[in-house]
């Protein structure tokens, strides 16, 4: 499986963010998108996720499932957590599993994998920023998608959390997945760097 971007350009609010960007990532490979603030890292991820219209060039997935589009085979972990404060931690996770079509599983186990099993019945409103991030990461594990699009994934995670997540990313890559992550901090897994924007 190979994710290919050719001559991708992005225009937002009438301003060209970047243009003529080429990138690719194959199974088992992580791509770290770096660049100064405002250089278009998040925009690139949202273009790949199909949440922004590509204004030039193309992004495609080779060797994936034929009947599914790239966004349908991808997980997007953005700045916003997609968590409902009124629902409990377990309810949030179970909803996304059901909605995204994951296999039935023991929610407690998935939460334990990100160190949240003690808080399963707590309303998500009471979670800290780092715990919210961990719960979002549990969503990536609950439903299998080959492509992970991660926007500053280690933000708000403590050292142990970063280590844990690096391990999870390593597992995902070794199972043939691929990762594109916008990041300032080191990812914790072997990654090729894609630099966009001017010199920082």
């Amino acid at each position, binding site marked *: 499986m190979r994710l290919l971007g050719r001559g991708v350009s992005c225009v937002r609010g009438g301003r060209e963010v970047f243009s003529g960007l080429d990138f690719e990532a194959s199974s088992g490979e992580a791509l770290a998108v770096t660049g100064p603030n405002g250089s278009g890292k998040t925009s690139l991820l949202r273009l790949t996720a199909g*949440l922004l219209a590509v204004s030039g060039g193309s992004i495609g997935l080779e060797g994936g499932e034929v009947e599914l589009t790239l966004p349908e085979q991808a997980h997007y972990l953005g700045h916003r957590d997609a968590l409902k404060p009124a629902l409990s931690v377990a309810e949030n996770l179970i909803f996304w599993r059901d*909605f995204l079509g994951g296999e039935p599983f023991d929610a407690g186990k998935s939460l334990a994998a990100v160190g949240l099993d003690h808080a399963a019945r707590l309303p998500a409103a009471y979670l800290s920023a780092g715990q919210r991030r961990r719960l979002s990461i549990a969503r990536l594990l609950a439903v299998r998608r080959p492509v992970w699009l991660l926007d500053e994934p280690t933000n708000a995670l403590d050292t142990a959390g970063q280590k844990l997540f690096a391990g999870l990313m390593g597992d995902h890559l070794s199972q043939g997945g691929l990762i594109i992550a916008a990041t300032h901090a080191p990812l914790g897994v072997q990654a090729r760097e894609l630099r966009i924007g001017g010199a920082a």
Partner: protein
Amino acid sequence: MTALAALVRRDIKIALRVGGGALIGVLFFLTVVVLMPFALGPDLALLARLGPAILWLGALLASLLTLDRLFMADHDDGSLDLIVMSRTPLELSCAAKALAHWLAAGLPLIIATPVMGLLLNLDGASTMAVALTLFVGTPALTFTGMIGAALAVTLHRGGLLLAVLVLPLSIPVLIFGVAASQAAITGPLSFGTPFSILCALSLVSFVIGPFAAAASLRHGLD
């Protein structure tokens, strides 16, 4: 199917929990209907004549009040991104959200109608007629209102805009809803004609609403 059922269940659960806002609509409906007899004075015949119109206006405004939450919360917390990306067609997800919204915010209005009828000097049969027209007509309000809600969410802070966009679309529903209720109470028209048109309006909105809302959401994402 499990995906859509999960979405409906989640939206209803959120609406019924603290801060969810399902009860806001009913309370507003109650306020409008309770205040009306005080404003009109103690003319029982007049109240009975205006009753269906007042109930319909109350229901229309109450459903408008809660509609802006339909997509706003999901947009603000990023859930909408994941719903757009998912393998479930966006049109079906929109329809499921509208259904959940109607079950949580529209159905309670209809359940409250018999009580409201008492306040407006409507007899049992008239109240049932109004409740029946509301039952058939309020889904049309939700499904056409959903188009406005989807547009408003793509133009940030479009709360008032929603009302301006949705009200013209709900005028036909209001006309035939009140006409059917009046026909059942006073005649001389037969109840069937306006009621069938009301049913037709609801059916049309079931088809157009989800497609228009989904197109607007897809186009307006940023």
